[in-house]
């Protein structure tokens, strides 16, 4: 506006635009500061946790005056989204991570260690170990989620079973009986691109999946062979459909229709069934531990923890939010909302968890988690399942498949092997 001022007021187009812009900007800034107060904390969580955690936030905002902006991240894309966010410096202040990922995110410097031991006290045994890297904890366990089998009581009762037997041989006898009664339907739904059923079987046979300080694959063992043989037999005998997640649009609906009678799944499936109780009443389904070769054993787990970004400008507020979300009371409230099981030990004294439905989880929770603690584990699981799918489809024998898994795992671990040999990581 320099020239305009010198020559007296002369409303040129350029001056008008500049003035208008400045006015709009100042209104914008004033508007922001006037309305919002402190900027909201950003919180990311996956699946039902992401969908329902806004319900836990009003209490926090009332107590601290800090609003929270919750973003629900789809679980199938969470890993790449979070890695990309870390590389781009866009991670939220607080995030939910599957406990198995914490090692990876701690190594790349995405999450910060706990400020003190108080937050990590009162946690169910085993849950904390997964968040510990070296001698520091990088997350506060939020929920525990061991795999169990959901079963249709009515279908099993018709075949003469109260509940699924707990050892493989009798379980298979039951499955054959069910299949005989309903030859067009299936007994078990275990999707071919979903590794956790097979991982559970591998854990149960006691297979040690990696060797040489976790730098090479170790799938060519009798234990792994036994697990793969049992897994394959389920598809060979037509007890499980050869289906991928992209083919099964509505697993709960199919369960309600009796398309299959047993579904290995996680605690949040309780919410799925609760939501659809018009189709599948509560009396029609039950929960049991996963059957093992000679009775139940360790199973795959999907525990989750809350972590604070290493770059958050407000660590105190972020840890306050973590403390709020992981309080025993809030974890119990979440349990009522979405079925998720609390990671706080003291929450387990509540009568809310002393029900027959929760009992299998409580027993399963006490088993150790034998998952190897290398950051390539997530990828190894997926590669293993891709080979398992080819075995099920008859493209490979079990021996060829196990050799192929070892080759692929060795390739995935090549970088880790080099770093371990050079003494750069343990």
């Amino acid at each position, binding site marked *: 506006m320099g020239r305009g001022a010198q020559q007296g007021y002369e409303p040129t187009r350029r001056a008008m635009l500049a003035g208008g812009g400045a006015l709009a900007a100042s209104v914008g800034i004033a508007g922001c500061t006037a309305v919002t107060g402190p900027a909201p904390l950003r919180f990311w969580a996956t699946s039902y946790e992401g969908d329902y955690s806004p319900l836990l936030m009003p209490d926090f905002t009332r107590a601290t005056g800090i609003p929270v902006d919750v973003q629900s991240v789809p679980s199938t894309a969470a*890993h*790449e989204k979070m*890695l*990309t966010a*870390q*590389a781009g410096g866009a991670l939220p202040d607080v995030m939910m991570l599957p406990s198995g990922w914490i090692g*990876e995110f701690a*190594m*790349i*410097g995405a999450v910060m260690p706990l400020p003190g031991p108080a937050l990590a006290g009162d946690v169910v045994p085993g849950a904390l170990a997964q968040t510990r890297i070296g001698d520091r904890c990088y997350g506060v366990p939020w929920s525990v989620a061991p795999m169990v089998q959901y079963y249709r009581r009515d279908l099993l009762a018709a075949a003469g079973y109260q509940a699924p037997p707990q050892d493989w041989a009798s379980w298979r006898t039951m499955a054959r009986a069910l299949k005989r009664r309903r030859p067009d339907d299936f007994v078990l739904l275990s999707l*071919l*691109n979903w590794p956790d059923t097979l991982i559970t079987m591998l854990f149960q046979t006691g297979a040690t999946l990696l060797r040489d300080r976790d730098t090479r694959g170790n799938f060519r063992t009798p234990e792994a062979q036994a697990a793969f043989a049992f897994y394959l037999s389920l598809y060979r005998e037509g007890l499980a459909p*050869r*289906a*991928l*997640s*992209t*083919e099964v*649009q509505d697993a709960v609906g199919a369960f309600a229709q009796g398309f299959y009678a047993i579904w290995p799944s996680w605690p949040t499936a309780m919410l799925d069934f609760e939501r659809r109780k018009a189709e599948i009443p509560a009396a029609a389904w039950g929960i049991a531990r996963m059957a093992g070769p000679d009775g139940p054993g360790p199973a795959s787990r999907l525990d989750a923890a809350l972590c604070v970004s290493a770059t958050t400008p407000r660590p105190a507020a972020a840890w306050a939010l973590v403390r709020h979300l992981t309080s025993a009371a809030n974890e119990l409230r979440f349990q009522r909302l979405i079925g998720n099981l609390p990671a706080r030990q003291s929450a387990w004294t509540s009568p809310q968890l002393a029900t027959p439905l929760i009992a299998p989880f409580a027993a399963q929770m006490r088993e150790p988690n034998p998952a190897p603690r290398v*950051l390539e584990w997530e*990828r190894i699981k997926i590669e293993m399942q*891709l080979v398992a*799918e*080819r075995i099920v*489809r008859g*493209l490979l024998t079990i021996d060829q498949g196990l050799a192929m898994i070892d080759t692929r795992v060795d*390739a995935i671990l090549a*970088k*880790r092997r080099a*770093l371990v040999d050079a003494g*750069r990581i343990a």
Partner: protein
Amino acid sequence: MTRQSRAAWLFTAPVLAIIALVFVLPTVLALGLSVTDYSIYALADWSNLRFVGLGNFVDLLTTPLFWRALGNTALFAGLGVPMAIGASLAAALLLHDTTIWWKPLWRVALFAPYVTSVVATAIVWRFLLNTRFGLINYALGLIGIGPVDWLGDPHASIPAILIFVTWKIFGYNMIVFVAALSAVPQDLMEAARLDGASRWGRFRHVTLPAIGPTLLLAAVMSVAGFLQLFAEPYVMTMGGPAQSTVTVLYFMFDEGFKWWNLGQASAVALILFILILGVTIVQTRIGRRYEWL
């Protein structure tokens, strides 16, 4: 420099600067990445980064999945380009016919899939292709063909995705062809008819030479598009069943963004670039021979 060329540079400078910043620079950086072993360990600590020369390329050529991805992509392009262009041309010829009523309505209806969200349409197509309840298997059943496990059988998954992709994209080239067809000289057409040329003869010797350049452009764009196929298998099958729909770009996405092996992924990108460039050069050669360029 003349005044005119100075002005020209001035006007193009902003665009050139943006292209240099968001296209040339990242490409050069990706070239640099492709000769390193950049992985998640390097994201943690730069000192874990090593120069590996052509190591990534050697690794790739010994990775069975990469060859599978190349084969799948070749299959997608080899079948998909004729399918898509054939469908576009057939639809355009039908729409060009003088006996067709309500042309604008048909144009919109056939073009609509192209501008609809790929994720939304993929979900609808997943329902259509469902083995038990899908409409497509129901229709096949009416004419006595047994149910096809479209998305679960490794041999049916590529055709299933091709049907979806063709339906999704043919509208674009159809519009281009409709425009090209309206420019076919009517006097030549009438002369050919008077000389007793058959319907096929008129198409082969009058229509085709006239729309040749358009056809070439459509072929070049479709080949480049099919070689970069990603979203459709990502949403429809996630690369399955048995990795039968993993394309080169899907492989690159998994390596790069899912597992953060950006060194390896950059090598894939470079190979894909060379492939597309090679195919396009061959296509332009063919175009020159027929004087379409």
